[in-house]
């Protein structure tokens, strides 16, 4: 637009609202919380109905791997929180490095998850497999919920990782900087939500015995 040609909106170039973007992100996170919340209620009811089977089944899960993944997610939550501090201070390079660290940690999480799932699937615990079909009802329910809830969570990890990759790209291009870092903040919020859900999934599936 050539400003000589006519009317220019008084706020032109300012049609960005960091506060509203953040509020929008939070509202979206609430829907995510209720999505997982519903699943946690399903878990609660089935667990009340199949108390012993759930305790027994949880022994099948690898506490060491679950603990490592918890630590991986907590560290990645710190690195993404620090990347926001870095971008606020105008240090784009450090911000990118911290985001890249978060991205690598998300990969580590997925690799460990892959080994965990492979071991379970190898033993036939995946819904639909022969071994699974012959499990007592309570145990089958436990593994169904295990795959469903950790699977949905893993899907969120993948989405979060893609989002972080976008933030890295846009920070590199200079579109995200110390005056405009809403994208970094929102990616951070999403990543923390993924961490929060894991904080509950971990004890409920791995540590109940």
């Amino acid at each position, binding site marked *: 637009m050539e400003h000589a040609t006519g009317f220019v909106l008084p706020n032109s170039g*300012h049609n960005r609202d*960091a*506060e509203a973007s953040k*509020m929008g992100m*939070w*509202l979206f996170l*609430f829907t995510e*919380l*209720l999505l997982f*919340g*519903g699943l*946690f*209620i399903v878990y*609660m*009811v089935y667990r*009340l*109905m199949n108390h012993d089977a759930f*305790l027994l089944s949880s022994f099948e899960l690898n*506490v060491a791997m679950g*603990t490592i993944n*918890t*630590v991986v997610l*907590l*560290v990645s*939550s*710190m690195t993404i*929180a*620090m990347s*926001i*501090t870095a971008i*606020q*201070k105008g240090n784009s390079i450090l911000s990118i490095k911290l985001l890249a660290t978060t991205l690598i940690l998300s990969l580590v999480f997925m690799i460990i998850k892959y080994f965990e799932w492979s071991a379970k699937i190898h033993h036939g615990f995946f819904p639909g497999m022969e071994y699974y079909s012959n499990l007592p009802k309570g145990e089958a329910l436990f593994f169904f919920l295990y795959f469903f809830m950790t699977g949905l969570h893993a899907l969120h990890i993948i989405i979060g990782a893609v989002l972080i990759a976008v933030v890295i790209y846009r920070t590199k291009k200079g579109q995200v900087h*110390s*005056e405009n*870092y809403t994208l970094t*903040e929102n990616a*951070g*919020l999403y990543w*923390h939500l993924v*961490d*929060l859900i894991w*904080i*509950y999934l*971990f*004890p*409920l599936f*791995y*540590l*109940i*015995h």
Partner: protein
Amino acid sequence: MIIVMENHKNHHNEDQHETHHIASYKEHFSTLAALLLLTVVTVVVSVFGANLATLSVATALLIATIKVIVVAYYFMHLKYEKKIYSWLILLVVVLFVAFTVLTAIEYLNR
């Protein structure tokens, strides 16, 4: 009056972030240390308190809730955000707890 004008100017300056508090790296690191400590506690309670089944579940959930509050307060910047965010979160938590309690009551009275 001057203060009001300053605020007014800031508002139009697009420097909406400048007034925001920047959390320090050190604060984030301390937060992580606290979260890791809580993780160790919850694993230890579960693995070595195996004979206290119900108690250890309650403990694990309590510790998880503390961890979640720590993440939200420090990592998600609730400490520095407007109060409206905390109120909205409280609303969602109350809703979820209500759903959970109602479901539990229904189940237990069957």
